[in-house]
């Protein structure tokens, strides 16, 4: 494994077991600074488990990992200062308003009052949510909620933002807007680590890793992957990777 300053995430032989079940089986990869890194796989392939280890919610069973230059095992608190996370399950408070949610999450990241105020205004105008400002979260449409959740996850300008299936259940137009936000963040130098099971979305990523049954079966740029597997689309790449294991699991 090559350890250069260019890599913002470095993972080596990471394993997570729940009892006898191995959810993440010995994965290794690096993510470069500023790239949009796609983490693909079917439901239950181990994507969420992997992401929860990298952001310090779950302890790995074994392996090594550095995130944002800090050791995952010993410097979890340092890592937390430098990352943002948007969960698969919607995580804003339904009974708080848009602005109250922003203020709350900004506040627990320790943003100073004046900075927080500035950021909040910036964020609301960027999303075009002025009219929703004082609306309770439970009263606004899902697409808006998701975009807001993403922005809130980045309110403290983290070095890396982890997105766990951010677009599931969202209509195509909002998905498009959502990816605009992701590119925007990447342009400003934020590394984006995103899991998805929409194969078309993987085309938007700089590099893509494909997880099958807890292992990373392929990792490259979308173009290279298509070439390697002799496929028209990422969809096809995925099917070719997934099929053999489906067969083997039936045996």
């Amino acid at each position: 494994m090559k350890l250069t300053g260019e890599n913002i995430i470095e993972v080596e032989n990471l394993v997570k077991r729940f009892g006898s079940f191995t959810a993440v089986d010995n994965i290794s990869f690096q993510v470069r600074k500023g790239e949009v890194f796609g983490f693909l796989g079917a439901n239950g392939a181990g994507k969420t488990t992997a992401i929860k280890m990298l952001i310090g919610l779950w302890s790995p069973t074994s392996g090594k990992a550095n995130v944002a230059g800090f050791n995952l095992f010993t410097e979890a608190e340092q890592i937390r200062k430098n990352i943002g996370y948007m969960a698969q399950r919607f995580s804003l408070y339904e009974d708080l308003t848009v602005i109250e949610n922003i203020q709350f999450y900004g506040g627990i990241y320790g943003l100073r009052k004046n900075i927080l105020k500035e950021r909040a205004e910036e964020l609301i105008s960027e999303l075009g949510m002025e009219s929703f400002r004082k609306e309770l979260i439970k009263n606004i449409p899902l697409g808006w909620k998701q975009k807001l959740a993403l922005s809130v996850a980045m309110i403290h300008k983290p070095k890396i933002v982890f997105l766990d299936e951010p677009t599931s259940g969202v209509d195509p137009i909002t998905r498009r807007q959502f990816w605009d936000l992701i590119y925007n963040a990447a342009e400003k130098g934020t590394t984006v680590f995103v899991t998805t099971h929409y194969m078309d979305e993987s085309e938007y990523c700089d590099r893509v890793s494909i997880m099958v049954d807890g292992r990373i079966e392929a990792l490259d740029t979308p173009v290279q992957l298509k070439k390697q597997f002799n496929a028209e689309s990422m969809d096809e790449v995925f099917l070719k990777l997934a099929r053999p294991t489906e067969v083997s699991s039936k045996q």
Partner: protein
Amino acid sequence: MRTILVIIRKEFLQIFRNRAMLPQIIMMPLIQLLILSNAATFEIRHLNMHVIDQDQSQASRQLIGKFKASNYFELSDFSFDEKHADEDIMQGKDRCILMIPKGFEHDLMKEQHTKLLLNINAIDGAAAGVINTYALSIIQNFNQQIDAQWINQQQFDQQKILNTPYSFWYNPYMNYKTFMVPGLIVMLLTMVGMFMSAQNIVREKEIGTIEQINVTPIKKAHFIIGKQVPFLIIGLVQLTIGLLVARWVFSIHILGSIPLIYLFATVYLITLLGFGLLISTMVDTQQQAMFLAWFFMVIFILMSGLFTPIEAMPQWAQNITKFNPIAYFVAVMRMVVLKGSTIKDILPQLTAISIGGLVMCSLATLRYRKRDG
């Protein structure tokens, strides 16, 4: 430090936004206090007594008159028939039967020795004991009165008498509400605090927001403190309402120092909320949190000396109450409010509860994990 304020602000926003919550927090305890203080009484007065007077003599009527005059007994039924009386006890109508057998007066005058029969429904053993004492002392009194009449007739020796005047301090009118209200205030603010804190963290777990907080660099202690403070403030508000009601509705004058009450209440609430949050970190669902909270709550309340005296418990049970925060607060409230005890008097309780608070908060902080195994 600022992160604590951020959490406090958010908790308050959520509490006040929930329209159903606020009345629950303020009105329920109030209503309960008004109702419970009237219901929770062991005052043993006006007990229904069934009288079977088979003698129908002057002496028997005198004796019955004595019972009538006492505050303790309500002579609800008269009959000549034991069977009828037995049925009344069976159906729970009467607490006891006084049976004056035929020849009561005759034996008393002629033989200087006569008999009475007292049947008591003893399902409530303690009350039965008290009824027994009351009844015997009335009979005794009647006996002495008759003796005195005879002594005056110089037929018998002078009797030695032990005079036993008695007085009741702090509550001369023996008002049971005066006794119950301070304790009930404790119970009510405890219930709300305990349940709200026990369901709080696990609720965030259930709706998923806890993960979002766990990935932030927030300090665990800050998180716990931020969760405690809003409930602490609510608890103190409830205490204030309770004390005002005690003063204006029940006319209970606080003899001791009010700041002392608040000091103790603060330490107590920190302990209690720490415990509630500890439960919340240990369970997976709100339902489990409720059961655990309910379980401890019932034990804490029933073993707190609030309803039944701690001294009456066996020694091992009394030892258990040393770990019961409610027991301390109930005792302290009664001491400070009713007797005017000072900080010197309640120092043992204050020390114990402070240690408890420290332990609970540390445990809650330790048990709250930002990273699962």
